[in-house]
């Protein structure tokens, strides 16, 4: 004889456990931002582009180290043609630009379009917290894009060094703060502009297009305007090339000023001018984003 099953109606159980309040809300928003830009817990098609960009950002670093390994094994006297940490920022900068163009709209626009901001407005979260958490998500991802390949190269080159591994790590330790500072410059130059465009645009595709227009066409426009020699102060148009400023500051950090063919450098602007432009644009962008979200949340 089999025993009869019993169904219990457990009803509603109140939550008597921990509540993390504002800190928990901020961390949840931050973590959701990371998931969003990588398409995690989203449909498969939303994962394709971000992960393709991850591969594009990291693969060259693996190739650099691999090629250095081959050279050190078969032609120890030949120097690697690929360069080092400073040169690699030129590769990842393009990937980061693409990622910000795709990721920043994903972070802000769906919440506005789909009305999800109403849910955030009923949680222990201020508008500044929401914007800050989303910005932190984007900055973290940019830092990852910039730093992970650099760390791979740093460790890889140390492993291939004729010195011992740990000695090589120590010898090159002065590169670490430079790498971090250069990555921070790119993040500061790209993320606030991407988020500002996504704050204003109502559709993701439009935001991506406007960001490219500002960063790339703006640079092309700057190149054209500085050629207008008949116009007084025409060289100041070089400052419109927003995409170039972090490269100029990065060269400065790595002691390579003048080694890149940058419009801003060619028109006589020192790297500190680029640094001020980056900080100014980041500051104004952040202020406008916060102002806008304080009005709508």
């Amino acid at each position: 004889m089999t025993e009869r099953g019993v169904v219990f109606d457990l009803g509603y159980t109140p939550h008597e456990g921990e509540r993390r309040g504002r800190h928990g809300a901020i961390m949840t928003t931050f973590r959701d931002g990371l998931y969003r830009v990588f398409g995690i817990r989203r449909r498969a098609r939303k994962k394709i582009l971000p992960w393709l960009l991850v591969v594009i950002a990291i693969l060259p670093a693996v190739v650099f180290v691999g090629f250095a390994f081959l050279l050190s094994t078969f032609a120890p006297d030949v120097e690697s043609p690929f360069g080092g940490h400073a040169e690699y920022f030129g590769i990842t900068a393009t990937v980061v630009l693409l990622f910000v163009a795709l990721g920043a709209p994903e972070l802000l626009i769906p919440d506005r379009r789909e009305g999800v901001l109403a849910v955030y407005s009923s949680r222990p979260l201020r508008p500044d917290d929401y914007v800050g958490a989303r910005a932190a998500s984007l900055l973290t991802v940019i830092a990852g894009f910039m730093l992970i390949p650099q760390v791979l190269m740093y460790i890889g080159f140390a492993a291939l060094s004729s010195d011992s591994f740990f000695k090589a790590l120590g010898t090159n330790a002065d590169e670490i703060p430079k790498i971090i500072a250069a990555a921070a410059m790119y993040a500061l130059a790209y993320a606030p502009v991407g988020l500002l465009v996504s704050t204003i645009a109502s559709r993701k595709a439009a935001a991506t297009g406007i960001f490219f227009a500002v960063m790339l066409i703006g640079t092309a426009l700057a190149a054209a305007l500085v050629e207008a020699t008949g116009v007084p102060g025409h060289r100041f148009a070089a400052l419109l090339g927003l995409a170039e400023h972090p490269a100029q500051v990065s060269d400065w950090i790595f002691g390579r000023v003048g080694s890149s063919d940058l419009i801003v450098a060619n028109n006589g602007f020192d790297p500190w001018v680029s640094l001020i432009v980056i900080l100014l644009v980041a500051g104004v962008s952040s202020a406008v984003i916060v102002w806008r979200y304080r009005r709508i949340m």
Partner: protein
Amino acid sequence: MNDAPILSARDLGHAYGSIVALHGVEFDLPAGRIGLVGANGAGKTTLIKILLGILRPTTGSATVLGFDATRDMLDVRSRIGYMPESDCLPLDVTASEFVVYAAGLAGLPSNAARQRASDVLTLVGLEEERFRPLGGFSTGMKQRTKLAQAIVHDPELVFLDEPTAGLDPEGREEMLELISRLGGFGINVLVSSHVLGDIERTCDRVLMLDGGRVLRSGPLSHLVDADIVSVDVLGDISAVVEHLTAAGAVVETSGSRLLVSSSDDDPFRLVRDALVSTGSGMRSLGPKATTLEDVFLEGGGT
């Protein structure tokens, strides 16, 4: 039971530029299920936004669960839930993911958020559909998901803004049933609606707004059980009316039907005496069936 008001307002006002949405609003509402009623534009949503800390009052102040709605916004938001009238669901995630996320936003740790989301989605009848993307949900399922995100963190008070909007009759019944059950879970409810029947079904108190002012406020039973007797008289009504008026009653006539009220005496007794004295017969006698709509219209609501 604590009798302290869960919601109160003093001289509360808000204006959008030159348009006054709320003016001189005052109330003290105890725990329970409260209906916030009023026509479109009466100021219901503005009041809810002030209580949530989204809008700052132009004048006066409001408290929620004892906390100042503006100054202690985060304390308020840690204890309440909100089901907005408008769309608030991301279409490309599953109901489960979204409700877990909503729980996390309220500060619940991951494991608790997952457990609560599962329980609450079952409670609202979405246990079978919880792993489907919200973009494929019907209006009724979306409304249930909105309710689930509003209560997933076990709030002390939940604001429901037009919870039956867009629902078919069956969906509306199910939503009203769910709202009625919330009180049993220890969750206080403020239901905003312009459908007065929904408020009568689900609430025990009501706050009526009209043109940004409080029209009526109090227990629903006090508002709708007006002390008025309705009697349908057979034959000539004039003698009955004359007798009632002489006894101090206030009489309204509509054909053969009389509506009788008295501030000094029991209107049933007055009607009985008048019928006996005049030798008149009647078809029916009983308390006037007063709906919330009657109260709203009598109060000058539009």
